[in-house]
Structures are given as structure tokens and as C-alpha cells.
């Protein structure tokens, strides 16, 4: 059965159209077909969160979405959140607070954290730990990731206040 279907995706504001088998996993579409390699494959079993992207406003593990399900979806990956010349506040904060060591989990971590802070701009430490529970890090012990996210919340709130 090689039943390819016509797929349309918007990724980081850019429209893509291609033919794909419905069983293709979204993470494979992003990495191998579209060359968007920020989202990583850690476990490929819905546990680690390294493949986290934002799909239609929800944080999802893109290893557990068929490309057919994502047909028509609007996606944001780490590439759409910041770039080396224009880092997102979370990226700066992760750097300043040593929120990463090997860096493998970081794209998924920051993609999830961005969505989390959008939904909860004034989190407690407990909120951060609970809201980030779908992303595993095997290096940091999480302490500095939590610090970085809390510091970003303060920074974004201060910037918002200053603007008002």
C-alpha cells in the first residue's frame, strides 16, 4: 500500500505542500522532508519530549502524530521561536542560567516553555515543574531549567509593564 496523500502544512509561517504516506510521523516530516532539524528524536515513544512542537496552539510530541492528522495544521518549532541573531528571552535565559548542558533536550524544552508561559505568565516553581513534566533532561537535574523559565517569566512581565 503506497497510498500517498496530498499534505499541506504551515511551519513557522511558511507554507509547505507535498505528497506523503499518511503513516509518516510528523517528526520525520519535519526533520527529513522539510529539513527542520530543531525538534529532536530522543525516545520516539512519547516519553522524552525532545520532539515537542506547537501544533494549532497545543504543545505536542511530534513523534506521536501522523502527518495525515497534521494535514492543514499550523506548526511552530524552535526555529520559529528565535534564531542566533535574535534569541528569544527563554533562549537567553537558558544560556545565562545554565539551563542546558548537552543541549539535546533544549529545543523541545524551550518550545514547551514558550507555550507554557503563554498560558501561565506568572507561574510558581511548582507550576513550572508540573507544566514541564513532559520534557526529560538527563544532564541538568532540572534545577537550572526551572530557574531559567522563572527568570524569563519575570523578564517578560517586566518588559510588558514597561511597555504599558
Amino acid at each position, binding site marked *: *500500500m503506497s497510498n500517498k496523500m496530498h499534505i499541506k502544512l504551515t511551519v513557522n509561517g511558511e507554507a509547505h505542500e507535498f505528497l506523503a504516506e499518511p503513516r509518516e510521523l510528523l517528526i520525520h516530516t519535519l526533520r527529513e522532508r522539510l529539513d527542520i532539524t530543531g525538534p529532536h528524536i530522543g525516545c520516539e515513544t512519547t516519553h522524552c519530549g525532545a520532539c515537542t512542537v506547537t501544533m494549532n496552539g497545543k504543545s505536542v510530541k511530534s513523534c506521536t502524530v501522523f502527518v495525515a492528522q497534521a494535514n492543514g495544521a499550523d506548526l511552530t518549532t524552535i526555529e520559529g521561536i528565535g534564531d542566533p541573531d535574535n534569541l528569544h528571552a527563554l533562549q537567553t535565559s537558558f544560556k545565562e542560567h545554565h539551563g542546558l548542558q548537552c543541549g539535546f533536550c533544549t529545543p523541545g524544552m524551550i518550545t514547551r516553555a514558550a507555550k507554557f508561559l503563554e498560558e501561565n505568565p506568572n507561574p510558581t516553581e511548582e507550576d513550572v515543574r508540573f507544566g514541564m513534566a513532559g520534557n526529560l533532561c538527563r544532564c541538568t537535574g532540572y534545577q537550572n531549567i526551572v530557574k531559567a523559565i522563572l527568570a524569563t517569566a519575570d523578564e517578560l512581565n517586566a518588559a510588558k509593564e514597561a511597555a504599558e
Partner: protein
Amino acid sequence: MIPAAFEYYRPTDMDGVLAILAEHGDDARVLAGGHSLIPMMKLRMAEVPHLIDLQDVGGLKGITVEGGTIRLGAMTTQTEIIGSDTLTAAAPILREASLQIADPQVRYMGTIGGNVANGDPGNDMPGLMQCLDATFHLIGPDGTRYVAARDFYEAAYMTDREDDEVLTAVSFDQPVGGYAYEKQKRKIGDYATAAAAVQIVKEGGKCTSASIAMTNLSDTPIYSQEAGAALVGTVVDDAAMDAAVAAMLGDIDPTEDNRGPIEFKRHVASLILRRAIARAWSRA
């Protein structure tokens, strides 16, 4: 982790879904959030030649509380359950249990319908639905029929749902009294080693009714009628809790797996039920 190939369908109404199910029988499965089915397909423990995505089918989402009855459309996600103030006011145990399911990413996708219809003994909602004496709404070629959650589960992944039927909603009477959903798990995202759903009513200092169901301690959820009965008429003291726990232990049938040997699971089930009863009673 590539699943076997399948034909993909995304019908926009239930007639379209039922037509595909009628044509392909048990070669077809419906897909809700996919966070049970897709992992099984990736492991090739499930092969689904015809996959019917429900995301565009109208009328399957939403929470209503009307005239003392609560209804949740099958495609309502755990995130939506957690975020619904109306539901939390009417039946706070739904939010308490949903917060203990998997992790945020999974809860955005995971649905009440998928959770109850899949028949995985590890899922939390089936036991909760038995505790609440919920009714499942199943639509098929001959129309809609209603099955009690307490009669729905036959064995692991085996339910009363026929291959040509779709679970469209769950409904239950608005619960009264104290509640608790208590779950012991090894880590975030794991299924329960043991979990207990308890609703309890207190009048004049005594328990007048209690409903108790357990998760992941048999190949189906376990509604323990006798455990609830052991609390009725008591002040829910230690002796009453001992009796309820003993009754529950008589109803469960855990198996050894990577969450521990049978004796350990029975031990955890006892502790979890005791905690759940104490918390529900304190809220009654």
C-alpha cells in the same frame, strides 16, 4: 518506529464514520487523540488497515452540565476537562484525576472517549467512570445505545463496544459529597501501580453512601460494591477503612509486571484506597 501502512480517512460527520466501519469491520479503527493507539501502531502491536480520524466530525466535543446531568463529548481532551470551571464546580474529581494522567503534551491530545473506549486497564478514566456510575453512549448502524460503565469492560482491550460502533459521549449524574482520585505511579507519564476513585456522602456525621473503583489492579477496572458498602453506616473510622480495604482486596486480581510483584501491588492498593477514602471523607 514506523507503523504498518494504512488508509487514512477524515470524515466530517458520523454517517461517514459509520459507513467506513460497516465496510471494513475490525480492519478499521477510529482515532481520537491517538496517544494510546499510535504508540501501539508504532510498536506494531496494533495493525489498523483503515484508520478513521475523528478530528473533523462535528458534535463530539464539549462539556454540558444540565438538570443534574453531566455530559462529556468523546473528543473532549484532558486539558479541556482540567480547564473547565463548570465541570470542576459540578464534579471536581474529573479535574483531580485528569491532572494525574500522563504529561501536558499528552493531555492536550488525549480524550475522554479514547481513554474509556480503548479498554486499557492502565487508563484512569474507566475506573473513575465506574465510580461515578457513568453511562457510555455508543452509536452504530442501528442508532444509539447506552451501556453502564460498570458493564462495559470484559477484559484487557475487550469491551462491550461492537466493531461497527463508536463511543460518542459519557454522561453521569452530578456527584454529591466528598471525592478523591488517588494514584501511585513510578514517574510522570507512567500508568498507575494502583489508583482509587472514591465518592462518599456524609449525613449527620455518618457515611450514607460510598462508591469505590480501582485502576490497573485487574485486566479491567474494578468497581468494588462491597468496599463502598463497608463504609455505609459508619463514621469512617479505622475499623471501617480496614473493612473497605479488605473488601477491595477481595475484588482485585493484579498480575506481576515491571511495576512490582502481586503482594506489592496489593499493599500499594491498600494504602492508596485508605488515603483516597480519608481525603474524600475530609471533603464530604
